[in-house]
């Protein structure tokens, strides 16, 4: 009996030692060997697992240009990824390069001094004309910059070209024309717009508020405007009216939105300009089967048309052993060569005006929004503090599923907003 107990204790001790050793060692192949190095293999973590092949494709170009290749680990669950990154800062394994979010999420990392400052990289990029001042603002905290943009996307309206042609509809240039198009489509038995009850539930609210009054939209993100203010309620009632007209697809459908647009479940979808990749993947041809237009402002008196923009950053952890390597890659990433290669790999709008974009549709979009008749505003996802965003996404999803009196939905969001802003005082 005693010997059995000793064997058991031995196994337990061995298991413990193994666990401890496993905890002390890491999975990366660069353990401790590349502090200060500016060439080599850079461990890169991203929540965009589907983009992993695109990052891998970029390795040939980066190896030649700066002798750095990415060892990419992709997560497909955003919440799991965020938790992993946050926990990594408490260890010796904080990443040399990782994707994150702008807005409140990035501010949290900056406030805790967890990400490396990139002011010098931004100064060079602005001097070279590689990035715009507007974009730099998204990465600026107390006058300093952190992280660099991984990508940029404008939130526009995609539409099925065949449906538009069959119904004799031209790309709307005013809100009235957009309403007329939706009315015509509905009369023909075609659902005008896509909607869902999960995650991407915010875009129509974002579009209606910013397109009515950009200052009102900005006020929501600073707490100066309440979700229950009459102006917001009026806007929600516009949305409700459109819901009651049957202009939106079934929020309970789990059909891939790209497939839905292709098979005509709906004619239009308000989405980020990265949606090209999904539509191409669904077998639609850019410019032939689908196209896009900037959504006109609700308020025709606005001098410029507001366009929602999102920019996802790539960041370097301040205490990473690969900090110098990550910073070297970040510097190269902003260059026209890197962005041209990235756009060839991913098919995306370029944040660098000097990069070459292969897809004419995306190239035109970049030119259009920069023509002086448009104003960029931060996407709702990044503009809204995280706790308020979580509740808002759920409430907009519930509204999409069961459209009705907007007040209960708005009151639920405002209750969370009141709590959040009270904590900030």
């Amino acid at each position, binding site marked *: 009996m005693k010997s059995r107990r000793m064997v058991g204790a031995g196994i*337990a001790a061995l*298991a*413990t030692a193994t*666990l401890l050793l496993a905890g002390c060692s890491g999975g990366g192949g660069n353990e401790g060997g590349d502090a200060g190095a500016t060439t080599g293999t850079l461990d890169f973590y991203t929540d965009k697992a589907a983009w992993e092949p695109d990052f891998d494709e970029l390795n040939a170009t980066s190896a030649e240009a700066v002798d750095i290749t990415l060892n990419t680990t992709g997560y497909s669950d955003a*919440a*799991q990824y*965020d*938790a992993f990154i*946050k*926990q990594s*800062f408490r260890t010796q394994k904080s990443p040399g390069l990782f994707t994150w979010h702008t807005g409140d999420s990035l501010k*949290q*990392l900056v406030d*805790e001094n*967890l990400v490396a400052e990139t002011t010098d990289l931004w100064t060079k990029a602005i001097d070279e004309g590689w990035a715009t001042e507007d974009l730099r603002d998204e990465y600026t905290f107390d006058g300093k910059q952190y992280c660099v943009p991984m990508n940029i996307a404008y939130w526009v309206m995609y539409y099925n070209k065949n449906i538009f042609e069959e119904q004799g509809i031209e790309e709307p240039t005013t809100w009235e024309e957009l309403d007329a198009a939706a009315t015509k489509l509905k009369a023909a038995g075609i659902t005008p717009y896509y909607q869902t*009850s*999960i995650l991407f539930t915010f875009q129509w609210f974002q579009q209606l508020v910013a397109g009515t009054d950009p200052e009102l939209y900005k006020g929501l993100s600073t707490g100066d405007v309440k979700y229950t203010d009459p102006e917001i309620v009026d806007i929600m009632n516009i949305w409700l009216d459109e819901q009651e007209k049957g202009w939106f697809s*079934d*929020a*309970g*459908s*789990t*059909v891939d939105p790209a497939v839905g647009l292709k098979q005509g479940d709906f004619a239009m979808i308000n989405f980020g300009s990265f949606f090209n990749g999904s539509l191409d993947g669904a077998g639609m041809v850019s410019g032939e089967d689908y196209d896009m237009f900037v959504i006109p402002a609700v308020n025709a008196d606005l001098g410029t048309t507001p366009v929602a923009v999102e920019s996802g950053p790539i960041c370097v952890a301040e205490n990473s052993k690969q900090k110098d390597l990550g910073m070297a890659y970040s510097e190269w990433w902003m260059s026209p060569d890197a962005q041209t290669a990235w756009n060839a790999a991913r098919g995306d709008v370029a944040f660098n005006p000097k990069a070459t974009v292969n897809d004419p549709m995306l190239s035109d979009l970049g030119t259009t929004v920069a023509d002086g008749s448009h104003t960029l505003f931060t996407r709702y996802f990044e503009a809204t503090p*995280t*706790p308020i965003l*979580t509740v808002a996404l*759920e*409430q907009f*999803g*519930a509204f*999409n*599923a*069961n459209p009705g009196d907007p007040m209960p939905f708005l009151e639920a969001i405002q209750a969370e907003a009141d709590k959040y802003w009270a904590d900030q005082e």
Partner: protein
Amino acid sequence: MFLVAVLLYLPLLWTTFLSFTEYNGLGDPDWVGIDNYVEMFTDPAFVGSLMNTLLWVAGTLLIPVGVGLALALLTWNLPGGIWLRLPFLIPYAISGIGVGVIWSFILSANGALDQALAVFGVTDPPRWLVDAPLNTVVMILASSWQGVGVNALLFTIGLQSIPKEPLEAARVDGATGFRLFGSILWPMLRPLTAVVVGLSIVASLKTFDIVLSMTKGGPGRASETLALTMYRETFVNSDYGLGSAIAVFLSVVTLIASILYLRQQLSQKHEM
């Protein structure tokens, strides 16, 4: 003991400590006393989540346990009974997420079920995963589809372990059907029933994966369960303090339910 301390007690203590703090996963936690618990119990969505969880407990006791018992009784001693139980057992090999994916395909708007109903002229079917509490009910049914087989198997093992003598004596006395079940089988199955029901209660209190994959707790928070609320607050909202408070509450409820149930069952066993 060291492993138990590292793997069980330390996380438990750390979670309990976090439940009294405000913490976003970065920097150091700030002590806030019982604020998280007050916030938790005054949140109407938490109450909704609690009610959904109770619905899960009731549902999984009624359906997988009840149907499992019925299936075991109907196929017990039946020639080829194993072939009747086997199809019910196969879904148990699928993960909860897998079950969720399969049933999402069936129950989503314009999904397989709606298309099948359309063949029979039903053009306006119920919104299975959208309307509450229908969405919770259909998810309980989906979960039952997975759980019936293993319960039937456990009850069959219980039935086969009953000694033949009392059964034969009862039959000689003319007991059949419900009389045989109520007077002989049910009392003799009690130890196994205690285990099956106990496991079902614990499993339903921590219902998570199937709801996450089918509705993500929505629309809004209409189909959320306590485990999903804990996940939402901790990992989606980065409110580790509130998430920990919910985890502590869920653990305490599960422990109390298990202890009360098992104590009651054990005392009944002594009375027999």
